[in-house]
């Protein structure tokens, strides 16, 4: 996964490198390499510098070219990106790091003395809630099954019609006020709005397709259970189904139904249950030999499980840094879905990264057509082949 920002001025590589190294003190948990220990891989401090490259070419993490880090920086012109293995963190976990990086970088670059409130800066004490057990007060083991659990839709619609993998990314910008008004008028939310529009686009592309469009909407179990600080990866998804039998013409009803589906799966007791299941899985994995475990996880990560994914790591503002940031995108790799929609918000605009694992304009054109019907102004900011860092196998 990654975060990409377009700054108002070209990126200064020297300042960026300096910034990245200074952040090691405040975010030691991202400056690690993975080493085997028994049947497991554990993160240990990586004294080598995290790479900061003046190129958009992808490299492999956990490899010599990334100094064996599980994260890397790159920049080109006004664009700067940070990429990190999902095994370390999730969107909610990485955003504070990005904000701090931009604070240090822009402070040095502009000479401005920005107010430090809301930024995690070198010299601060790292609170236990950020790195320790995110749920110290919850009795996870005694959690009972929630009242509702959705059955997974196994036979879902695939947007990659040819099976050829050639990942692309499209960058879109939508005015926040227009989107939020549309959401208010139609019982939506940014996640739900995008889910419905993407499902409509899929139907528009293939009106005869009769399989259910299954949308995985990202949720953060940590936040669901009251911890907003922790960096650890507790992102998961809830599933929203758009069966063929249900017309999407009535956008309000489609949004209500999507929100209802999300609501039922995103209750605190569902998160507690999911954490309990994750703990049990982890205990089972602990018994497995390392190669078997990494093989199983790699297989799981590469198997399609939904048609589309939608994720919104609620950023909204970098505070005093906002004037220096023109665009902000989060990036996920389409692996378990054919299309990912990553939503970010800054400077009163939503920035959508639409990532697809196939090289075609058909779907994105249909999506833009659906957006046009809403009356929301949508600007296509760019399109390119997706070049996210991969991970060298352990």
């Amino acid at each position, binding site marked *: 996964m990654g975060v990409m920002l377009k700054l108002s001025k070209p990126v200064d590589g020297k300042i960026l490198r300096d910034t990245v190294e200074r952040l090691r003190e405040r975010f030691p948990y991202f400056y690690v390499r993975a080493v085997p220990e028994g049947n497991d891989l554990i993160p240990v401090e990586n004294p080598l510098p995290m790479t900061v490259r003046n190129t958009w070419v992808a490299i492999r993490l956990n490899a010599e070219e990334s100094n064996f880090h599980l994260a890397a920086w790159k920049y080109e012109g006004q664009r700067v990106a940070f990429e990190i293995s999902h095994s370390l963190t999730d969107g909610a976990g990485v955003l504070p790091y990005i904000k701090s990086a931009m604070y240090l970088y822009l402070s040095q670059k502009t000479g401005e003395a920005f107010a430090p409130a809301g930024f995690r800066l070198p010299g601060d004490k790292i609170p236990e809630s950020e790195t320790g057990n995110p749920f110290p007060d919850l009795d996870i083991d005694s959690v009972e099954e929630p009242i*509702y659990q959705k059955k997974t839709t196994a036979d879902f619609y695939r947007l990659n019609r040819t099976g050829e993998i050639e990942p692309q990314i499209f960058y879109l910008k939508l005015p926040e006020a227009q989107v939020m008004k549309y959401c*208010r008028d139609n*019982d939506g939310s940014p996640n739900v709005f995008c889910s419905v529009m993407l499902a409509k686009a899929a139907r528009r592309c293939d009106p005869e397709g009769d399989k259910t469009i299954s949308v995985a909407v990202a949720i953060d179990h940590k936040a669901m259970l009251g911890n907003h600080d922790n960096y650890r990866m507790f992102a998961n998804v809830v599933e929203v189904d758009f069966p063929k039998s249900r017309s999407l013409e009535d956008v*309000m*009803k489609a949004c*209500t139904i999507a*929100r*209802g589906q999300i*609501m039922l799966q995103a209750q605190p007791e569902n998160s507690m249950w999911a954490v309990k299941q994750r703990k049990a899985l982890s205990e089972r994995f602990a018994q497995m030999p390392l190669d078997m475990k990494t093989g199983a996880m790699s297989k799981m990560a590469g198997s399609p499980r939904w048609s589309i994914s939608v994720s919104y790591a609620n950023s909204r503002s970098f505070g005093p840094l906002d004037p220096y940031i023109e665009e902000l995108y989060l990036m996920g790799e389409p692996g378990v879905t054919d299309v990912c929609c990553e939503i970010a918000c800054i400077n009163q605009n939503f920035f959508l990264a639409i990532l697809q694992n196939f090289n075609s304009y058909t779907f994105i054109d249909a999506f833009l057509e659906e957006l046009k019907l809403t009356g929301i102004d949508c600007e296509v900011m760019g399109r390119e082949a997706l070049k996210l860092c991969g991970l060298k196998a352990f």
Partner: protein
Amino acid sequence: MDNIQQLREIVNPVFNTAKSCVQLVAGVGDEDSRQLLGILGFDRIGNEKSDNVVSPEIAEKVKRLFPVYAVYTEARFQTVNKLIEAYPDRVVVDLPCGYTARGIKMSHQRRTYHGFDLPAVIDIIGPAAAKIHGGDNHIHYDAVDATNYESMAAALEGERNLLITTEGLLMYFTQQELEEVFSNIRRILQKHGGSWVIVDRAFYTHDKTIASALLDHDAEMVALYTAVTKKAAGAVADVKFYDNVFFKNTDEEIITFIEKMGFNIREICVADYLPDQLGSLKVMPQAEAGVREVFRDMNYWELTVKEKGGAKVDKDLPFAVESDFTDGKFTVRIQGRMDTITAPELLQRFQALPCKAEAIEVNVTNMAYVSSAGLRVLLMMYKSLEDKSQFKMVGVSEEIREILEVTGFDQFLL
């Protein structure tokens, strides 16, 4: 026991109707009913286990009322049988089946038949009928509760194209129960196809006219008959009978209700299905022409599910909440759209209850739309209950049901 009470026990629709139907039809010459009655052992009309002795005065009145009740019962039973013959491809669902011989008749006709009734009835009629139809595997007797969709759905699993007939049932429901039954049957018909024929209203509205024609327009006897057959039941039972729209309102108002519940209506003239010979009329040939004339004015209602939209609620209805909190039960009736603007009003009422609710009943008959905010409030209310089975939603329209079903809320709210 006073005279009226004795009469009540003889023809009481609550306690003895189910039994007296088969007795009366057997008594006027229906062979299947006679055979079944022999097995059932209901050898005396009325309270077969009672030692009550009817006074001579009452006995005389009974003697005059009995043929009226026999005509009423036989005509109802046989017209429905004839009507079923007009739908040879349908699976017959007899709701309620009581102790009648209809299942045996269906076996003769090689039809698929489901007799629905409460367990106390099914436990007796099922084995008794099987002794006659010899284990015909197309004849089923199922213990169901019409207010419980799941019980009916389970019994009809795999069946298609139904003809549901209802005689002698709707008067026992409160308005809320009635709405629930309509909602359940609409779901059943949506899933299985077919139609629902309702007999109860026709006989209720023409009961007095039939009695008058048969009793030589003797006003005193007609009044007595009416009192016995209608009021008596409610007076001795623990529920109030005839207390819903089907028996309290005009035909026009009932039709509006039925349409709102998502059905189309077709009228079926009762006389078209009246057999040429009715055994019960043999003892009063002078009344036959008059009675047949009454039947020509009577219509059964055949209900089919509206193709689209189901129960339609006026979308412009203003939002309103009526609520009551009695004996730990929070009862609420919601009208209009329950959305971000309006849902907080319901939540506010719920949170302002003087103590925690032990049961919740939400009537959404007039709910035009439920948004995610409304769903959230319903979920909060549901989750607040210690005993989750004490949450009930009634009057769910097609629009609302679709939202509940696709979101998954139906799995615990309905």
